[in-house]
């Protein structure tokens, strides 16, 4: 006989349950269960995964939620109950409506209602008013289980029988008939403890007294008994308290029995509970039968009740369509084609219309017309708001999307395929991603909610799972280890999974020190195991960065929602739940590069009045390609990383399609399969392109015979077998599944022979296809990425100041801002320092002489407040320091920081030396704190510092300024060195050591021994063909683009943790040429530059001292000697850099 578990928290009850739904369902089925409910805390977070897991395991799912309840009027808490959804019947009832889905809808609404409390009463956990619960439980929709955590169970626990009965009467009075059951839970705890047999048997007696059904549950938190340890960790994490300090009983589970016990063990528990009290005859059988009966009522039909796999789109009327959506779509699409292909000539136009007809046939057969209209409506909304938008993903392959202006990449000319996006063979819902300006994303969401109505729209959530650092922190917290110790370990937890912590300790050279400590300490050893247990468990949910769910008015009957951080409702389901739930998800992704480009266009317009329409910039501008080929790609979308720079250097793009190819090649799959090298060889004519067979040439010509794109694989399949492109895409997907390969091969061989291909050709092409696997890239993605790549390159080429202002404001790329500032300097765009007279809230372009410069904005000053910055901008310009103080009233900290970085220099005639007195003066100001109005009047009285009579008060030296360069000061207060590069102060040292400037690296032949130095700007560990880790460090010395240093395994072992940790470094290595313009350095040794500089200074001081001492001992000959030594110390001998190269004069220009 089986046992149905009715109260089970999955791992999606974060910091509570610890077993994933798939494991729970599998375990239940293996024990012979035919039913399993998942009742997560405060939500249906694991619901869809549970239902799918049950379908896969062949058992019936139940769904519920473990919710807190409160009294409607008094708001008094009534404890926690389990709310279970009833299954419905598809047969129409007497009222003519089928009850299918009613219970599930009521459950969704109940969960959403509980979360409304958190909005109404901030800081309060989710809780549902009992009256609302009663309302939803009507029409036989829900059963509420009153268990040990309810007000009834709590009274029973403290042996308050009258109280328990009174509480139960309240429930019976308010809840509809047959919606209540008593939940008996017994964890076989010690007598006298909660979870022991005595309160359980008293609950059973209470049910008998009140004539309510009693059901047995195990209030499950984990699948197996040994996962109880993990649940202890979850408790510690939930309470943010070490296990040793947690209150047993109230905060810590009483023992480890809350596992998904098999039927036999549950019956054992039932016997013990019944035996422990005085119950009527047949109590045991009744308890088990009532449990089974309730499970029967709560078994849900995945399709009928939950609506699994049934897509629902917004009603046509919502998007302003009054006629048949298909007819509407046809009309709009035809019109769009005529407009988009107006310049394409007759043949091009006909081809576009043919393609449209082909696509529309699929849309019609799948019934997706509303979907396309909906997405186009959203795109229109965005454009009407004046926000940049660009479609991405396989939807870009559709001429229909192009015609509707959903996408801006022309698909036919770019060789993109509709079938990669949608075909009758595809089982999943279509997916179109819209990239928009990141800074305006929330405005778009609000507008979409407004347009479609809050009953049809929700944001999507995402489940954040434990990764290394979080896992080690929470495990360390549970063990009560010191924060600093845990933080030190957490810092090293990267680039490997927490599950593999032990293996990583054994393998990674930089972890050797930690590994030694682990061997010594039992506690650390335990920490390693516990960390591994937490890895991958859901940790919390948050709003997905881009997912917006659009549906019809039934949305809130199908998904519970809760408030997201930004206030808009968010579904409790994540992206994996969308397709099964038939929810249409639109990815509206905020892309910072789009914001950066919009900012650049805006700045250009502000300064010149000219408007740049980026979407109409010709795609064949020679200067733009020249810039890209020079690999000065810093800041350009997609191609700015060190690896991309290297590939761009080798590939030397000449036309737009080259960018698509480049972006598609730079992916883990193609890289690991050596595709870039094969492509480059053929591209540069080192080998002849191999098309395998003349019939493949049209397919492979654009990539010189190398298969790169999904679209090419699809075409090859189609050419070989005549299967049609839709089925070809199915075959392509299956290439990634090793078990499918032989089936596909047989299919290909059989059909290809019949279509006139010889066995040898088939052998060869099959080897290519099988090797391709699921790697490669959809060309649609590549082309969609290539467009902003080109647009940003074009801006960098023609409007560098505006472009860099955009980059610095929106920070879209991988590089730190300080490097972008350095890049501006190299490009000849002056970056102007912070100045209260000119600085705005974002980076602005200013005219400087005949050219343009970029002004640092106020928010870069760390520690200043929004209100202060707003006042500065509002009251600019200022006539005097007094005026500034009166109208802005900065806090002391801000005031001093402004003075230090020079933002107040306009008040001291831009005489830097006077900053000491300015700062001293500001520091001497005394006054009481006042609250000021924004429109404070100012008095034009100069502050006394400028009014000194007599000689200048220049004996003041501020310790905050002394010995610090302007760059030092800027770095301290803004993190950005604007006046000069932060490496500049080391240039004399570089000259002395013979360090090669990064800008000169490209002039050296391969194999040259060099010294490099600079500040670390990026660290990468790209995937490598042989699987051994290689560390790329990008060094910036201020002379030009970053120099990339590669540390191979042996060098990493020699250097240890410094490979990842040293910020300013000196590197010895050897140049390695890659392609026409590319050069990198293989690192052999590495030193901390700060230490080198300090040691060097000490040596020189010592030499100087020795020389002076010698001079004192013996005057005559030693004077000359001493002078020579002094000269040597002061003017170090300049060595030639590298071997056999001339010395570099770049350091002198400093």
């Amino acid at each position, binding site marked *: 006989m089986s046992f149905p578990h009715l109260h089970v928290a999955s791992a999606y009850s974060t910091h509570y349950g610890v077993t994933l739904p798939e494991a729970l369902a599998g375990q239940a089925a293996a024990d012979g269960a035919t039913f399993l409910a998942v009742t997560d805390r405060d939500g249906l977070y694991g619901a869809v995964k549970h239902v799918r897991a049950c379908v896969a395991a062949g058992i019936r799912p139940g769904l519920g939620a473990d919710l807190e309840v409160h009294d409607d009027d008094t708001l008094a808490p009534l404890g926690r109950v389990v709310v279970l959804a009833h299954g419905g019947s598809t047969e129409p009832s007497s009222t003519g409506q089928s009850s299918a889905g009613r219970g599930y809808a009521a459950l969704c609404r109940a969960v959403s209602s509980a979360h409304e409390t958190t909005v109404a009463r901030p800081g309060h956990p989710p809780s549902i008013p009992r009256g609302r619960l009663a309302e939803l439980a009507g029409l036989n929709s829900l059963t509420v289980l009153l268990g040990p955590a309810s007000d009834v169970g709590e009274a029973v626990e403290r042996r308050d029988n009258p109280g328990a009965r009174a509480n139960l009467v309240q429930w019976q009075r308010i809840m509809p008939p047959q919606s209540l059951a008593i939940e008996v839970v017994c964890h076989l705890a*010690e007598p006298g403890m909660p979870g022991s*047999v005595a309160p359980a048997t008293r609950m059973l007696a209470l049910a008998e007294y009140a004539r309510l059904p009693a059901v047995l549950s195990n209030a499950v938190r984990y699948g197996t008994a040994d996962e109880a340890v993990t649940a202890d960790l979850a408790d510690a994490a939930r309470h943010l308290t070490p*296990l040793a300090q947690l209150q047993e009983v109230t905060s810590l589970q009483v*023992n480890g029995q809350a596992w998904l016990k098999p039927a036999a063990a549950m019956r054992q528990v039932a*016997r*013990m509970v019944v*035996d422990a009290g005085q119950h009527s005859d047949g109590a045991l059988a009744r308890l088990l039968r009532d449990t089974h009966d309730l499970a029967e009522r709560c078994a849900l039909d995945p399709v009928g009740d939950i609506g699994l796999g049934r897509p629902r789109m917004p009603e046509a009327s919502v998007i302003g369509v009054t006629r048949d959506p298909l007819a509407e779509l046809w009309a709009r699409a035809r019109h769009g084609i005529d407009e988009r292909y107006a310049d394409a000539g007759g043949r091009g136009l006909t081809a576009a219309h043919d393609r449209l007809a082909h696509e529309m046939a699929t849309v019609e057969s799948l019934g997706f017309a509303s979907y396309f209209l909906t997405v186009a409506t959203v795109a229109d909304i965005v454009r009407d708001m004046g926000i940049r938008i660009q479609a991405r993903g396989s939807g870009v392959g559709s001429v229909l999307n192009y015609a509707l202006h959903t996408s801006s990449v022309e698909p036919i000319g770019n060789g993109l395929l509709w079938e990669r996006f949608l075909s009758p063979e595809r089982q999943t819902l279509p997916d179109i991603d819209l990239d928009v300006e990141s800074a305006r994303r929330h405005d778009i969401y609000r507008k979409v909610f407004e347009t479609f109505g809050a009953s049809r729209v929700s944001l999507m959530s995402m489940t954040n799972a434990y990764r290394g650092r979080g896992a080690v922190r929470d495990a360390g917290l549970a063990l009560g280890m010191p924060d600093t110790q845990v933080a030190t370990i957490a810092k090293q937890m990267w680039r490997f999974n927490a599950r593999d912590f032990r293996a990583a300790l054994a393998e990674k050279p930089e972890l050797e020190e930690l590994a030694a400590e682990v061997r010594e300490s039992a506690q650390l050893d335990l920490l390693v195991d516990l960390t591994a247990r937490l890895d991958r468990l859901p940790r919390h949910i948050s709003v997905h960065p881009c997912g917006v769910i659009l549906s019809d008015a039934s949305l809130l009957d199908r998904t519970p929602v809760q408030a997201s951080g930004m206030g808009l409702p968010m579904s409790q389901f994540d992206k994996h739940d969308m397709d099964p739930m038939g929810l249409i998800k639109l990815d509206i992704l905020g892309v910072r590069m789009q914001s950066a480009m919009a900012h650049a266009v805006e700045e250009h317009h502000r300064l010149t009045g000219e408007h740049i329409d980026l979407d109409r910039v010709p795609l064949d501008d020679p200067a733009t390609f020249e810039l890209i080929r020079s690999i000065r790609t810093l800041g350009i979308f997609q191609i700015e990383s060190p690896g991309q720079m290297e590939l761009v250097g080798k590939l030397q793009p000449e036309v737009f399609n080259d960018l698509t190819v480049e972006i598609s090649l730079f992916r883990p799959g193609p890289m690991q399969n050596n595709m870039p090298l094969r492509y480059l060889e053929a591209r540069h004519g080192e080998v002849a392109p191999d098309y395998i067979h003349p019939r493949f040439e049209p397919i492979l010509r654009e990539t010189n015979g190398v298969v790169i794109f999904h679209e090419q694989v699809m075409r090859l399949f189609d050419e070989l077998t005549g299967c049609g492109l839709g089925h070809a895409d199915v075959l392509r997907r299956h290439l990634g599944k090793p078990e499918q390969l032989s089936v596909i091969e047989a299919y290909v061989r059989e059909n290809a022979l019949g279509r006139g291909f010889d066995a040898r050709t088939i052998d060869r092409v099959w080897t290519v296809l099988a090797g391709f696997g699921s790697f490669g890239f959809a060309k649609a993605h590549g082309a969609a990425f290539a467009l902003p790549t080109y647009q940003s390159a074009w801006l960098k080429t023609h409007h560098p100041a505006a472009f860099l202002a955009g980059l610095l404001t929106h920070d879209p790329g991988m590089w730190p801002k300080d490097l972008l500032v350095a890049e501006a300097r190299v490009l000849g765009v002056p970056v102007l320092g912070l100045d209260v007279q000119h600085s705005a809230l974002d980076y602005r372009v200013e005219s400087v002489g005949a050219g343009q410069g970029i002004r640092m904005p106020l928010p870069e000053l760390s520690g200043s407040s929004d209100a202060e910055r707003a006042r500065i901008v509002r009251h600019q310009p200022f006539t005097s320091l007094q005026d500034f103080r009166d109208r802005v009233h900065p806090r002391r900290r801000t005031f001093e920081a402004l003075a230090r970085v020079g933002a107040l220099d306009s008040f001291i005639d831009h005489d830097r030396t006077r900053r000491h007195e300015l700062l001293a003066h500001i520091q001497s100001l005394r006054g009481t704190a006042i609250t000021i109005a924004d429109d404070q009047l100012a008095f034009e009285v100069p502050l006394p510092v400028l009014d000194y009579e007599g000689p200048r008060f220049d004996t003041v030296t501020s310790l905050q300024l002394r010995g610090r360069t302007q760059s030092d000061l800027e770095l301290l207060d803004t993190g950005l060195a604007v006046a000069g590069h932060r490496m500049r102060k080391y240039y004399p040292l570089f000259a002395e050591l013979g360090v090669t400037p990064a800008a000169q690296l490209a002039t050296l032949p391969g194999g040259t021994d060099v010294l490099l130095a600079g500040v670390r700007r990026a660290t990468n560990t790209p995937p490598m063909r042989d699987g051994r880790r290689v560390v790329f460090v990008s060094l910036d010395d201020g002379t030009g683009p970053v120099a990339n240093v590669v540390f191979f395994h042996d060098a990493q072992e020699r250097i240890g943790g410094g490979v990842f940790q040293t910020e300013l470094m000196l590197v010895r290595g050897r140049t390695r040429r890659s392609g026409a313009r590319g050069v990198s350095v293989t690192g052999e040794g590495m030193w901390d530059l700060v230490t080198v500089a300090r040691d060097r200074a000490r040596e020189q001081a010592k030499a100087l001292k020795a020389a002076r001492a010698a001079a004192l001992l013996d005057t005559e000959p030693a004077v000359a000697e001493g002078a020579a030594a002094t000269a040597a110390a002061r003017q170090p001998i300049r060595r030639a850099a590298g071997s056999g190269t001339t010395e570099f004069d770049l350091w002198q220009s400093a």
Partner: protein
Amino acid sequence: MPQIIDAPVQVELSADGDPRAFVWDRFEHTVIGQPQAVFTRTRWWENTGTPTRIDTELWRLDAAKGGEDQHRYDLRHDADGTWVLALDWG
């Protein structure tokens, strides 16, 4: 007076998993009535090694040897599967 025994015993389980009898000191003791299991948590983080269980399993039951008076016993079931007669409550 409870008496500490602390001796490993052979336990025979019934079809539904409860102890039915145990052999202690060569004599079979037959369990009478419904035995009760008690699981008590351990402070595992204070011990070395990662535990597979966080609690100890103890069965409190009444049993009689032949026709003698029944006694109350505590049987401990260890993680390695062995049974230990912990206490004789008399």
